[in-house]
């Protein structure tokens, strides 16, 4: 459309005449090439290599090693941590989001908490583990929690710190979409507060809540820096074991273990994110 417009103006007939020889999608080649080399290729390597043996031959039997009790242990560890931290994060985040949404939409509290949530949802990693270490760790300034180094509780508390703000960010639009008229209508029909939440508000918000829960799950699954800074001796979860497999000097055989564990994570994330996308679509129905 814009091509036609420019040709009609006849500003540069010479260039316009030459243009058809170079299709316009060529302009996107640098971007596509970059993404292919640094995103698609590494992912492809992970998938292909997890079906190979160290000698380079195909070994589809590798996939059965995901069922190996040791390997399964790391996945169970990851699963526990993700379920706990996303449940706490989602419930607490939803409460905070409700408190924010029920106030003045231009009020200072809302602005402050939104700005802070945007910052803290990104905040994780080594520094976060240090911050909790000095707060409730062995040198704790507030107190010394005996469970600080216990898995999964100690690390769950730390993960909750960045899970709550993320939930606020994804759940607030859904709460904002709940109209006061719906509450008034149910009150006029004689519904109590409990009945309103049980039969109207709850079901309306449920898809958005579950979607947020899944997003938090994926978020916890891929976190790595925080847990390494928290405990670097014992591997509890898959990312830690990938790290061990990659850096240990036992030999090449471990490289494919890392690939296999990574493949397992890709599968998990893919399942979770598909569920998230479906729930988001369901939730969006009420947000118009």
């Amino acid at each position, binding site marked *: 459309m*814009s*091509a036609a*417009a*420019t040709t009609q103006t006849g*500003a*540069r007939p010479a260039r316009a005449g030459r243009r058809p020889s170079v299709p316009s*999608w060529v*302009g*996107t080649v640098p971007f596509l090439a970059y*993404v292919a080399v*640094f*995103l698609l290729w*590494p992912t*492809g*390597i*992970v998938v292909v290599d997890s079906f190979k043996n160290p000698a380079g031959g195909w070994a589809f039997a590798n996939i059965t090693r995901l069922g190996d009790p040791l390997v399964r242990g790391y996945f169970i560890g990851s699963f526990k941590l993700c379920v706990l931290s996303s449940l706490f994060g989602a419930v607490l985040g939803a*409460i905070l989001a409700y*408190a924010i*949404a*029920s106030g003045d*939409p231009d009020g200072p*509290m809302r602005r402050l*908490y*939104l700005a802070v949530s*945007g*910052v803290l949802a*990104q*905040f994780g*990693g*080594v*520094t976060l583990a*240090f*911050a909790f270490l*000095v*707060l409730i760790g062995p040198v704790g*300034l507030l107190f010394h929690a005996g469970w600080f180094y216990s898995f999964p509780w100690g690390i769950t508390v730390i993960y909750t*710190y960045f899970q*709550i*703000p993320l939930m606020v*960010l*994804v759940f*607030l*639009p*859904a709460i*904002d*979409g*709940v*109209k*006061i008229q719906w509450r008034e209508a149910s009150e006029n029909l004689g519904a109590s507060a409990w009945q309103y939440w049980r039969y109207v508000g709850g079901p309306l918000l449920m898809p958005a809540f579950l979607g947020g829960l899944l997003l938090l799950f994926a978020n916890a*699954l891929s976190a*790595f*820096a925080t847990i*390494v*800074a928290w405990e670097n001796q014992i591997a509890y979860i898959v*990312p830690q074991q*990938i790290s061990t497999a*990659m*850096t240990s000097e036992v030999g090449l055989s471990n490289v494919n273990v890392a690939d296999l564990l990574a493949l397992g994570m*890709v599968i998990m994330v893919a399942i979770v994110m598909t569920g998230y996308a479906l729930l988001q679509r369901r939730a969006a129905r009420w*947000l118009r």
Partner: protein
Amino acid sequence: MAAVTSVGETPAPAAASRPRGMHAGRRRRLNAFRYVVFTVFGLFFLLPLLAMVRFSFEGAKLGTWSGAAWKQIASYQGEGVPPLLSSIEITLELAVITSVVMLVLLVPTMIWVRLRVQWLARTMEFLSLLPLTIPAIVLVVGLGPIYNRIQHYSLSALMLFWIYVVLALPYAYRALAAGLGAIDVTTLSEAARSLGASWFTVMVRVIAPNMRQAILNALLLTFALVLGEFTIAFLLLYNNLQVELYSISRNTPNAGVVFSTSSAALAFAFILLLILSYAGRRRRGRG
């Protein structure tokens, strides 16, 4: 005008959802509930940060105050690790390079796709958001062979920028897409083109200045991301700020300098991101 969160781009019907017609009693109870919630969550978010800052001022004896850990930032040299200052420099350089490469790669392509190759728009969005769903720890496993090749040419930790651009891609893309969506790209470019502007002029002098805020957002997000990156640098055995802090804390548990540097880096990242969220809101408020 309703405040809109950074994630949901739906214009919230907040004016309607405002509980105006509530009974006074319920309004009071709700307000009490809100302030309890704000206080409890505020403490939860604030205390770890305060503890870290307080600990960075800890003197030789418990409970005393001292600025020694902050002075050490400039001179600290741990055992078996490069000087702290050099890793700070590397990280800042990485942040600048990554931001520039990301902008050069993404802004012209996004404008071009919007103007001339609409049918690629969905593919581009998918590819740009894909890094959100592929954990860094997975990416790094596949990056081994690629970085082996890069290391034939350069061993510098600055080479990390290649992959950092990919990590920043989803955040930068969303920031830029919001900015691009707010202006009428087609009309602007047709006007410029019909006045004889080249495509380069259209992008650099016509469209880019109109999405200044979005470009700034993308820059800040990229910068903050690079400052906090640990996973990839650690597993590819490079040394950036976060890896350095981790190594120091392993060699010397409770070294004050770890906490002062962490606090400083954190304060820096917070300021960047707070600028972003307040600047963004002002722009939306006007519109």
